[in-house]
């Protein structure tokens, strides 16, 4: 059976009239890197919260269907047990800083202190995690003195250090520069290859095409499309439903109308676009 298994999940936040998630069915294998795309209000963050146990344990509200990760069912588990398997990092880095720690090193160790990891093991795990995300030089800085992009790296590291089996990331690179984004995506990709399952919400289509194994497109709380990145991201359905589209895809689509793009498939990344237009010449 799949490592992550969502069956007919429908969820409604308290005091709202329409469900945020409607009849979601999703299976993800261990070590798979799945990207989630969708316009604002499509339910991407809610899906992240559902995977991480915060829906319904933290937000309450009405839920039906089953959410299973690593053969455990969310509704039969408690949040403090659930977070041992599933790590969550989200967009706003400032609010992810615990506020209880004075240095980045202590900040990253915070989660390990909470779950009772012995001191020596804690130190080496924090060192390793910081090396992985390239923030070793920040170890003694105050987390509040960092830039947004650096704080996002700290937030990501604080979750990675807990070694979750499923890593849920809700736009973890929104405040990073392109070089930082590439590095972080590379790190996440490597974690997935080492067996960590990754679910990532992201707007940067070019990155998804390069790094993800599969893409799930959400619209109004339901799954609109699902499949290989290049198939999903170049689908006309996405353009018609208000999704963000890679500029290379739009260019090639326009080129196709004008007879300038002769390949069957549309590109998502710059390299694919260059390749395709060369093919014509």
């Amino acid at each position: 059976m799949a490592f992550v298994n969502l069956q007919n999940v429908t969820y409604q936040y308290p005091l709202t009239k329409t469900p945020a998630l409607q009849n979601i069915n999703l299976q993800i294998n261990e070590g798979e890197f799945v990207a989630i795309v969708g316009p604002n209000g499509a339910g991407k963050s809610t899906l992240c919260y559902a995977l991480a146990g915060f829906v319904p344990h933290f937000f309450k509200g009405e839920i039906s269907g089953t959410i299973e990760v690593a053969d455990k069912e969310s509704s039969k588990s408690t949040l403090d047990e659930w977070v041992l398997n599933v790590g969550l990092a989200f967009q706003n880095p400032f609010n992810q800083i615990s506020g209880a720690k004075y240095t980045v090193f202590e900040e990253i160790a915070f989660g390990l202190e909470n779950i009772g990891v012995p001191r020596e093991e804690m130190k080496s795990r924090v060192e390793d995690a910081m090396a992985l995300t390239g923030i070793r030089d920040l170890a003694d800085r105050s987390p509040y003195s960092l830039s947004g992009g650096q704080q996002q790296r700290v937030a990501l590291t604080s979750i990675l250090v807990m070694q979750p089996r499923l890593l849920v990331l809700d736009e973890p690179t929104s405040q990073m520069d392109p070089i930082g984004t590439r590095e972080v995506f590379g790190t996440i990709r490597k974690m997935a290859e080492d067996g960590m399952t990754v679910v990532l919400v992201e707007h940067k289509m070019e990155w998804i095409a390069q790094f993800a194994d599969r893409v799930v497109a959400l619209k109004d709380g339901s799954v609109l499309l699902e499949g290989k990145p290049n198939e999903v991201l170049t689908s006309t359905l996405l353009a018609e439903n208000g999704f963000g589209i890679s500029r290379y895809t739009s260019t090639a689509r326009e080129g196709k109308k004008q007879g300038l793009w002769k390949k069957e498939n549309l590109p998502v990344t710059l390299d694919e676009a260059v390749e395709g237009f060369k093919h014509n010449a």
Partner: protein
Amino acid sequence: MHERLSFHIKRDSLIHRLNPLTKLALVLALVVVAFTAPWYWTPHILLLLAIIPLSMLGRVFPEFFKTATRLILPAATFLFLMQAFFQPIGEDVIFKFYFLDITQESLMFAFRNAMRVFVMVSTFTLFLLTTHPSELMSDLTRRGLPGQFAYVIISTLQILPQMQAKAQTIIAAQRSRGLDTESTFLKRAGSVLPLVGPLVFGSLVEVEERAIAIEARGFTSKHAKTSLHEIPDLASDKFIRWVLLALVILSIAANLWLS
């Protein structure tokens, strides 16, 4: 912008190396003794022969002196004047100002009370200067203080300066849209309102996100917590705490005995 709200000065000294609980015990003991010892000069002697030497031993005397005078002198002076004028004791009037008179007794009384307050605040200052707040909290947590309580204290210390900075940002943003913050008092008072909304509601939203973030890092885990830093608690620490306890008991006993 302040990075954090803390008096702590990182230095290596005998006082810095004491266990935080020992230092806390020292503060409490000095305060209790200053208030309960029946001898008139106790607080003065404590200040001169205990607190000031301790601040030198802790290698923070300049900072201690600066903070202590700035923090306490105005309050202690005010207290002194109020008590000197309004304490209706004694016969021997030294000084008269309309209906207010100062007697020798009220002067002595006011001097001692001002000194007691001085001892209280200055020992606490010394404690804050030589103790890192997170060290104190992890030591107390290890001794059974609930983690949530420690978290509230530390995060408040850290988040207040952040909120201050955010208030500045909001004011700047409002001013750039024409909010008047520099004219008459009434207008300025009115201009506080548009600040309160974003600051308060923004903070409420933040609290929810922060709760999720720390929950995701096992904050409510039922495992026994561990601590990154080892905080030494030596035999000498325990000895000092016993001595302090004995002093407190003696002082209270003397107070009851002699009064």
